[in-house]
């Protein structure tokens, strides 16, 4: 078999564009402007401003991941249970909003949520109290859920459609009720999709700076905002890289947790 030779282009790509660039972030993060080794850029996370930004980012992204999972799993189940001929159409319907530009979609939410925006006009027309969530954490979490929901739906849907219906029928024949069938057959078999989904939602939510800028009114700074400012405004690449390394440590924790739940990377360990 020469299948191993097929890995050459990919090996080259990941070395040149993933491994080496990350090495450079580590280099910048662990040196000062003269090139001497220092831990100062990493320790900088402990300052009140930086640690607050990190904490808020973790809190918001955890909340939006949980909401996405709760919304997406029933949806994926309903979609997977539909007739085959409807599959591609329905899935497309749910990817379609992603074809709209991310910044435009977020701007649209700004328009909807504004004090004199669309939602408040409708509420006012119905003589209901106005909704004031723009520039609050709720608006940021809403923006995160809206933007990242499809990334949770698709992988779960993909793994659900691969489940052999006979397995489920067998469980039912053997006397399991629908709750038992779900808990012991469907859920474990769809776990690889759930784990992909969590990864795909949590990380972009943790590190975004655009959503917090547009829906948080630049008042709520996430760790992403701080790093972006270091690179574009303050111009301190060493500090920016140092904070990025801290951010990567949190992502590493996420990876380890994923590995624990998804033993030996096979996904179907159960």
């Amino acid at each position, binding site marked *: 078999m020469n299948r191993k030779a097929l890995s050459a282009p990919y090996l080259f790509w990941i070395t040149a564009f993933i491994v080496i660039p990350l090495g450079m972030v580590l280099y910048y993060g662990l040196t000062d402007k003269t090139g001497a080794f220092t831990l100062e850029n990493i320790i900088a996370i402990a300052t009140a401003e930086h640690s607050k930004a990190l904490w808020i980012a973790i809190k918001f992204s955890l909340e939006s991941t949980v909401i996405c999972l709760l919304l997406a799993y029933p949806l994926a189940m309903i979609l997977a249970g539909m007739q085959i001929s409807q599959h591609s159409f329905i899935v497309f319907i749910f990817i379609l909003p992603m074809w709209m530009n991310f910044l435009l979609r977020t701007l649209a939410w700004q328009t909807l949520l504004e004090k004199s925006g669309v939602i408040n006009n409708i509420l006012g027309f119905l003589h209901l109290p106005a909704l004031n969530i723009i520039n609050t954490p709720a608006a940021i979490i809403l923006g995160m859920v809206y933007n990242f929901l499809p990334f949770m739906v698709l992988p779960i849907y993909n793994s659900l459609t691969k489940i052999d219906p006979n397995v489920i029928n067998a469980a039912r024949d053997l006397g399991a009720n629908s709750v038992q069938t779900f808990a012991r057959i469907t859920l474990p078999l769809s776990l690889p999709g759930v784990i992909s989904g969590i*990864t795909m939602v949590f990380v972009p939510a943790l590190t975004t700076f655009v959503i917090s800028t547009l829906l948080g009114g630049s008042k709520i700074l996430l760790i992403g905002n701080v790093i972006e400012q270091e690179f574009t405004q303050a111009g301190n690449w060493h500090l920016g890289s140092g904070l990025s390394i801290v*951010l990567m440590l949190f992502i590493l924790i996420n990876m380890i947790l994923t590995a624990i739940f998804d033993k030996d990377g096979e996904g179907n360990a159960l």
Partner: protein
Amino acid sequence: MIKSSVRKLYIALIFIFLYAPIVTLMVLSFNASRSRAKWGGFTLKWYRELFQNEVILAALSNTLLIALLSSLIATLIGTIACISMQAMKRRTRAVMMGVTNIPMLNAEIVTGISLMLLFITLGMKFGFLTILLAHITFNIPYVILSVMPRFKQLNPSTYEAALDLGASPLRAFFMVVFPDILPGVVSGFLMAFTMSLDDFIITHFTKGPGIDTLSTKIYSEVKKGIKPEMYALSAIIFTAVLVLLFLVNYIPKENKEKKEK
């Protein structure tokens, strides 16, 4: 009966949630008032201005070209990588998958910064090529993540059976394995395409001063105040995708019916 109507209600609610902002954008594209909060009457002015705005049109063509090229190349590299990983030892494969997952698990902002540092060190001119390379890099993991589960759930005996029955490895792959992984390849490609279309953060760090994609263009305009032409553009993009959707779903059905006859 109750179950099915609960299902329909749930789908409808998510549908409204997903489409409310898009409908808002489309309505605003016909709004004669420049303000986003007030309705000033129906107009097609923004559509006319859009087609005279060369800066936006250039950004649109950059966005589409980069999305198409990067997702095609990423799908090719990613699918081949999945095939090659099947033949690897468990540990080697785990290491490869670990590295593969880095750009996806990693913060986009860090990927953007790291590529920026790489391109600066290599002395590359920031422009189309640097954006394209960056987009391929962050697209590949989405392809692999979508294709790999299909391989995991594949029965390896069918491929071996094809070989035993005298098919060449290539033929066995395209006749037996490929149809099974195709949904994963297609959804990987679609995901890569939308990721690329949507990307702002990595493009922000790897683009040069002379070139813009829609995202970076919009971002620079948000500071000045968004122009209604952008709403017109998003309405056009949405309509185009909708048409594509109907074509994709209508044509295969026709073929199936013919086959059945």
